[in-house]
């Protein structure tokens, strides 16, 4: 604002008008922004049936990286990918496929990833066998024909990672008591999420389905360690050799690491005579 000399009143009105206009704009844009932010938040949720192309970054990162150009769609030789329309529940313009309609054919040269100009489909994926588009889950164990004792096995047979992503585990058929069940078991480290099993499932609605990883997988707490894994990593037990167990042992018994329980003839080694009497009752051994 450039107040002109000699008309202070006019410039005050203009200034006021300017402030009003600015406030009005800020409100309008703020309102729009709030709406858009809510919409954007909603469209982060990928519906379970929409599977991203191979090499797609984690959904959160993908939505910031994919510029929705559709080159992956164009370079897919099997034409399985489509860009989400505004009315579809996938972030508008982003690529996805529905396994039950057209599963990924797992091209060895991965043309969709090569075509991506931004790396939303990660160019470090060179081996399609390492793709993690999703994870097959045998959702319906009540209607799966193999669970019913039949030898359908179709999901097992069509799997491109044959005998590694899906294996058949034998179990006794409790219904007949003498036959076997061949239970399809999916192994997440080998499954690429291509969706061939879901496509091929002969049921009216597939019993085995491919879900995005964050839906299909559980995750233990970050602090959680598996003792046997840690032991293997370290090459030895990470637990300090037991000090003599003194808690809740049967009367007159003692425990030694590696030997188990034994009658307590002598006081445990290392305990100075008389020390036991000073301890709280709970630590004196024997039942409480």
């Amino acid at each position, binding site marked *: *604002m*450039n107040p*002109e000399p000699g008309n202070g009143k*006019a410039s005050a009105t*203009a200034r006021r*008008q*300017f402030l009003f*206009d600015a406030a009005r*704009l*800020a409100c*309008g*844009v703020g309102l*729009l*922004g709030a709406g*858009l*932010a809510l*919409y*954007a*938040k909603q*469209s*982060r949720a990928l519906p379970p049936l929409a599977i991203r192309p191979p090499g797609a970054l984690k959904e*959160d*990162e993908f*939505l*910031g*990286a*994919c*510029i*929705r*150009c*559709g*080159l992956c*769609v*164009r*370079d897919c030789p099997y034409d399985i990918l*489509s*860009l989400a*329309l*505004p*009315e*579809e529940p996938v*972030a*508008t*313009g982003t690529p996805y496929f529905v396994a039950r309609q057209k599963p990924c054919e797992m091209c060895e040269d991965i043309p969709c990833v090569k*075509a*991506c*100009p*931004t*790396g*939303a489909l990660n*160019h470090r994926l060179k081996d399609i066998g390492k793709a993690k588009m999703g994870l097959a889950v045998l959702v319906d164990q009540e209607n799966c024909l193999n669970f019913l004792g039949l030898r359908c096995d179709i999901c097992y047979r069509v799997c491109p990672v044959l005998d590694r992503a899906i294996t058949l585990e034998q179990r006794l058929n409790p219904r007949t008591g003498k036959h076997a069940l061949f239970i399809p078991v999916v192994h997440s480290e080998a499954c690429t999420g291509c969706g061939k099993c879901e496509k091929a499932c002969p049921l009216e609605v597939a019993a085995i389905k491919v879900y995005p990883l964050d839906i299909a997988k559980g995750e233990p707490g970050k602090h959680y360690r598996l003792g046997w894994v840690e032991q293997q990593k370290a090459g030895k037990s990470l637990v300090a050799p037991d000090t003599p167990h003194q808690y809740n042992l049967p009367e007159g018994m003692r425990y030694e690491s590696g030997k188990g329980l034994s009658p307590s003839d002598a006081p445990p080694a290392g305990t100075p005579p008389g020390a036991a009497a000073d301890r709280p009752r709970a630590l004196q051994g024997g039942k409480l």
Partner: protein
Amino acid sequence: MSRGIGAQALATKGWLKSHQWLLARRASQLGILALFLLGPLAGVWIVKGNLTFSYTLNMLPLTDPFVLAQSLLARHWPETKALIGAGIVLAFYALVGGRVFCSWVCPMNPVSDAAAWLRERLGIRGGAHVSREARYWLLALALLLAAASGTLAWELVNPVSLLHRGLIFGLGATWALVLAIFLFDLFVMKDGWCGHLCPMGAFYSLVGKFSLLRVRATRRAACDDCLDCYVVCPEAQVIRPALKGVDGAGPTILSGHCSNCGRCIEVCAKDVFEFGLRRPLAAAPAQPRVPRVSPAAGKSL
């Protein structure tokens, strides 16, 4: 003087001469769209993709820098291909004028032009008033949302990319958004979307702030104040300084909002305007001849 807009130019120059740039723009818009459609419709893959990123003849990448800016703010570093594409596009528009994108390429331009034309025909006046600066607020909003959400939030609703992608990959419900903007421009606000709100236009106006190719009111002395150029110009405020020499301004239209559409050139019976180059390092403006207009007077244009 005849009442119709451009009637004088039509009488003196003939239909073709008084519509040449309009025809050229429609040819450019349709031609670009045709190039994109040739692949999916006829299987001739000269250009793949859409306006956010395209790959021509498997060698020329072109990236929309506005979308890429959002992606960068969402903290994703793209592959080199996308960066090179954005560099080429930025360099091109920095030379020929940022908003050349708006009037020569953007698929929303025919929609908004149609609304403006019909509005004129039906004699619809008035409507909401929103400052033309609103687009910068929306630009800030789009960039802010990208940074805050880590996603391309604006691209969920950006009518420009939605429409272009829709025309090539399947329209879906995009038509409803485009129709809404058409009706908004027709009934609520003249040049509402392209001239007041579109953040992409705001972005490109900044890109072309110092561009070389400009419309110049070279023969402004011949202006007979018929106002036809103001009526056809979707950014009418850019004309006055150059045409009337406000504050001693030279004859070159310097605003980043001029989209070099050329309508003022062809609609002028006196041939006041022409395309030209910005005079490099123009001399400091001479003494003001016309006093600076007050903001209120500026708005009425």
